[in-house]
């Protein structure tokens, strides 16, 4: 992979929740660089702060101290409007618990990030059809999320994350709750996305996903180490 400027760059990053007796230091002095087109995997035990780190990279949460630069933007300094637009156009999120909107159908869940981005009706229709095909759910587009299995919901979450064709994907435990067959399907999608040159950061325990990574990181007790070294 060619050397390019970092898409994500974190330095001296810390995140503390609570105060006094309930204070928990989730992330401690984190340094991270993920370059364009790089596939990075963050491993580590449950509760080690993987989701928190993804939230900070995506601007969903703010660090207690330190800096985080994504696509050259210092997210700490940005207001909520900027961050919302930034997430809409630059970042695709796949949450651990899918977080599909229960009152929207599968097609609507995939369409709404594009509607916010102001895409044309034709574009939205074509893209929804394309993404449904990619995740193999063409015949489920009119269903509600609660009518789908966990694996199907995960695939809808992938389709939604890809809706605006974002250059950065943040994916939290994509195979954590899935059977082997569905996991394999998800891994195939990840491999295809890697092939497209997208920058991908995945928090996972899955060895098969780790095998795809350019950069393997390990988070434990709030500290991030590189397994490549």
């Amino acid at each position, binding site marked *: 992979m060619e050397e390019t400027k970092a898409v994500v760059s974190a330095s001296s990053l810390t995140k503390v929740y609570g105060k006094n007796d309930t204070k928990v230091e989730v992330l401690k002095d984190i340094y991270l660089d993920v370059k364009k087109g790089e596939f990075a995997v963050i491993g580590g035990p449950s509760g080690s702060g993987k989701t928190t780190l993804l939230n900070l990279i995506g601007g969903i949460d703010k660090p207690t101290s330190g800096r985080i630069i994504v696509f050259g933007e210092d997210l700490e300094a940005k207001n*909520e*409007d900027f961050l919302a637009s930034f997430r809409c156009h630059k970042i695709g999120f796949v949450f651990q618990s899918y*977080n599909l909107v229960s009152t929207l159908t599968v097609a609507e869940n995939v369409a709404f990030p594009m*509607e*916010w981005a102001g895409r044309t009706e034709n574009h939205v*229709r074509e893209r929804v059809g394309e993404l449904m095909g990619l995740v193999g759910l063409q015949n489920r587009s009119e269903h509600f999320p609660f009518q789908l299995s966990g694996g199907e919901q995960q695939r809808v979450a992938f389709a939604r994350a890809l809706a605006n064709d974002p250059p950065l994907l943040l994916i939290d435990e994509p195979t954590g709750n899935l059977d082997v067959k569905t996991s394999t399907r998800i891994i195939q999608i990840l491999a295809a996305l890697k092939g497209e040159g997208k920058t991908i950061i995945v928090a996972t325990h899955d060895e098969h996903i780790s095998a795809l990574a350019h950069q393997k990181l390990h988070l434990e007790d709030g500290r991030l180490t590189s397994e490549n070294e």
Partner: protein
Amino acid sequence: MSETSFSINDLLRRKLQTSLVIISLTLCVASTLFLLLFAQKIGFGISSVTEGKLTSGFAGIFSPFITLLTILIFVAGAVMISFTAFIMMSQKIKDIGLMKSAGCPNEMLFGYFFTQLLVVTFAGCLFGTIIGIVMDTASTSVLDNLGFQFVQQPFNLWIPIAIFGIFFALSLILGTAPIVSAAKAKPARTFSPAYYLGLSKEPGFNVVSKSGVTLKIAVRTVVRHKSATIRAVVCLSAVFFLITVAVAGGLIAGGTSKSWVEGAVGRNTLLIAHQDVVNQYKLLLSEFYEGGNSTQFNYTDDRYIIPPNMINQLHILNENMTIDARLVLEEPVKEIQGIIFGSSTAQTQYVGDSRQGQSLVIGVDPDSVLNNWSLAGTFLEENQRSEAVVGDSLAQRLFSVPLEQKIRISGQDFSVVGVCVDPLNNGNVTYVPLSTLENITGVLGPNVLMIKLDPSANMSDVLNRINATVRATNPDFEVYPLNNVLDKSLSFLDFIWSTIMFLPLLTLVAASLILVGYVMLTISEQRQELGVLRALGARPRTVFSIVSAQSLIVLLGSYAIGIAFGTITTLLILVQNPLVTTYTVIEIAGWLLLALIVTFASSIYPAVRFAKKPLLETMTQP
């Protein structure tokens, strides 16, 4: 863990959800109790202010108005409280399903959640009762300092006790329904939004523009949360129904009652009579707003008869002037027993108890009468006939079926053809043809003249010329403009209606508080999904717009229903023969628009607060 400790711990751990429900219940109970206490004070205040005053026709507007408002306040409060309890327990359906899945027996499950319902509704109703009493005491003190003496009424402890008991019982009954229903349902079914949200789907997949996406999501949420939306619309419709009846009813009844007085007394009307008769006539008119009874007066004194040349001179002054000559007397009026053919029943019936009373009897020429009374039946048609129109208070006092009965005055029988609302002598008045009255009493000639002035004329100039003409004919006679008495009567009605109009104002405040509680609850229900929308690119103001649009959709739907039913109730039940002018319509529309704006603005507050919350906080469960 015991049922009680589990329930209490669960409530304490979900601080936000628990406090929202308690706040909503507290607001509902407090505002309802406050309005009921206040309505009682207004009702009491008005009956004490109007005791011995007002005719039965006027008094007949105020009491039903306050009674209907009191009933509506109670019903609206009960609906809102039931709805809040229902929403609270509906939010727990998923938990019930989870516990059932984990093997919790139904009776224990019911015990856990019923204990929660008991604790929350008890706290909400108790705090609401206390705050309602505090609000009442505070408002009483403020209004007392502002000079509204009507609020001086002893506190009735039974009202708060009854409200607490009834609302607590209602909350328990309505809140228990979702628990029982969820406990009976299969656990897997309770996890489905189709069950706990009543989710339904409209056909097709429509892509919308960026600007339309906010509205689309809002509409979709409102439509797909069908059961919750229907309940919200029912609740808010009840509130808007109450506001419409209060505002429209108040304004229409106020305008109608004032037009009755104006029509009966006459705007720009001059009274010409001997100065003693003028003073007596003023006294008779003032009974409407000052009470009391007029003293004995000898109307038949020859000195009081209008000199015929005075009438001629006045005619010469202005040939187009209508002169309404009257003979005012005080005579015993007797109800005649008899058999009538009831026009409504189409059967003969026996009427009359030979009731008798003293009444002001006024002989008028039907062709030149200037007044425009609010009338049931017809007015006198010909001068020679034996027909009578009686005042509303006299009709109520003497007759069971006034329009089909007869009265006897000085041995002459008269058929009652009309009942008029008349402030003169507080409605204790009988109008008969002038010539008939002269014939039966032997008093020849009128003792009172009424002249209506053209409002476009120079009033002081005309008044001076009439005054000069009257004085020149007989210096003991005087000209008195009835506008003075009319204005006092209207001020008195204004005071009563301005007091009553506190109710719609305070109802509006209460409705706004209730709506804030409702929006807080609905936001709490959707907070995770709204958080996800923000995480995927929705700006805070987009989320704010979605919540506001949802509120507006529900509000407008409820507004239309509430106003429609409120208007029908007002026009058909509350005020008979209502006077609805363009100004009244504009005034009512202004008030109702204000109500919509105030309730919508208050519903925005929780949405603004929510939009400002940190994103991660909105994405987590409360």
